[in-house]
């Protein structure tokens, strides 16, 4: 019997309490910095080392490099870079192995689309996906470069 009134009291109190809902589609949700969202790719930083494509557990990354157009410079520059988000599991491995941080995680997560074709993102799209880029990209067990660690 006492419990009934206690319960009624709880519900009456929560009537005016702060609500926990958000107006999500109207107001975008900002994810925490360590959130693993859709990758952002910067072509200028890429050295075409292929590590990201090799470590990818789902093999969703395909990339093609070409010789540096400037004949005086060595090495390659990136030509095409595609991620297939039908199979990408956003595991963070590609961004972890990237030696130049050309590919980094962002806080964006909205991938829903009406066609599977739209999930195949190319270099241009990934380059333009530059909002909410993760600030701290090498924080898991990595020695801090500023403290003289290997980086």
């Amino acid at each position, binding site marked *: 019997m006492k419990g009934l009134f206690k319960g*009624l009291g709880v519900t009456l109190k929560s*009537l*005016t*309490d702060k*609500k*926990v809902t958000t107006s999500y589609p109207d107001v975008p949700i900002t994810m925490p910095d360590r959130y693993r969202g859709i990758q952002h790719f910067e072509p200028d930083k890429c050295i075409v080392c292929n590590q990201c494509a090799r470590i990818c557990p789902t093999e969703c990354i395909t990339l093609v490099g070409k010789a540096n157009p400037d004949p005086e410079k060595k090495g390659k520059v990136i030509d095409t870079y595609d991620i297939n988000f039908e199979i990408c599991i956003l595991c963070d491995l590609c961004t972890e192995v990237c030696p130049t941080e050309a590919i980094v995680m962002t806080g964006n997560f909205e991938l829903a689309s009406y066609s599977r074709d739209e999930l195949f993102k190319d270099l241009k799209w990934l380059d333009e996906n530059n909002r909410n880029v993760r600030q701290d990209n090498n924080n898991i067990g990595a020695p801090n470069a500023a403290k003289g660690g290997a980086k």
Partner: protein
Amino acid sequence: MGAWLEETLTWGNALLFFLWGVILLAIVLGFVTYAIFFERKVIGWMQYRIGPNRVGPWGLLQSVADIAKLLIKEDTIPRKADRVLFILAPALAYVPAFAVLAVIPYTQNLYFADINVGLLYYVALSGISTIAIVLGGWASNNKYALLGGMRSAAQMISYEVPLVISVVGVIMMSGTLNLRSIADQQGDWFWQWNFIPQIIGFVVFVIAAVSELNRTPFDLPEAESELVAGYHVEYSGFRFAFFMLTEYVYVYAIAALTTVLFLGGWHAPFPFLTWVPGIIWFLLKFSFIVFFLFWIRATLPRIRVDQLMGLGWKVLLPVSILNVFLTAVYLELFVK
């Protein structure tokens, strides 16, 4: 209105009655629309949500949109259903729900029918809705619907008994079954209203009333989570809307009846507040009861069938009969 009912029935009078009926129907439909909206809002707030807020300003058109959706849905009748009964049931459920509103007095002068057995009329008619629910459950030819219908029959018959006996105390104190006189006889101070002298009857009445309304914690006939939806599982579109309408019209009726029987009807709680019109006091008490129904729905879980029957027959019935005897002893010793 009462004076017109005394006159002989002419075509003009009949038209007048019809128009008043239509006006009441419009008011009741408006009430139902916004009661559903208010219920969803209140339950939302109590669950740390906001509730409907997308359709129209502050979500005010949400119920309108829902009803519009229901009305344009396909009207399905199962092939093996009993067609005639299936069609009859929603109408049979709704008609008594609307008909009982005729005897509810809103103020001293604003009422529809001033029947000297008003309370009996209410109880008798509201029993017919049970038949409609059983009928709907049976005619659907669906096991969940049948279970819901059977539960409903058992529950409503069990709780009709304490409901009626709990108001016997009020009838004994007032000496009348006329709802207008019952409300009128309650005093100017709020402790002179029937709910204090008849506190046992009041508590039994409220519990039995919630059960009669098939609302949580006594919503076993519907029991979304175990019976899918109970007796109206096979209904869709307009017929389903009728069952929902019936349910909310009964909320209206019970809230009004509780106000009239126990909460002093249109009386102000203090004599110095009588300058506020009676209809305002009626609406305030009425709204509080409606809110209370939503409040317990947001608070209490559904009880089991055996608990429901045990509560009805072993607790509420003896307590309400005890109340009758206590009232009789009190009246014999102190009033006579």
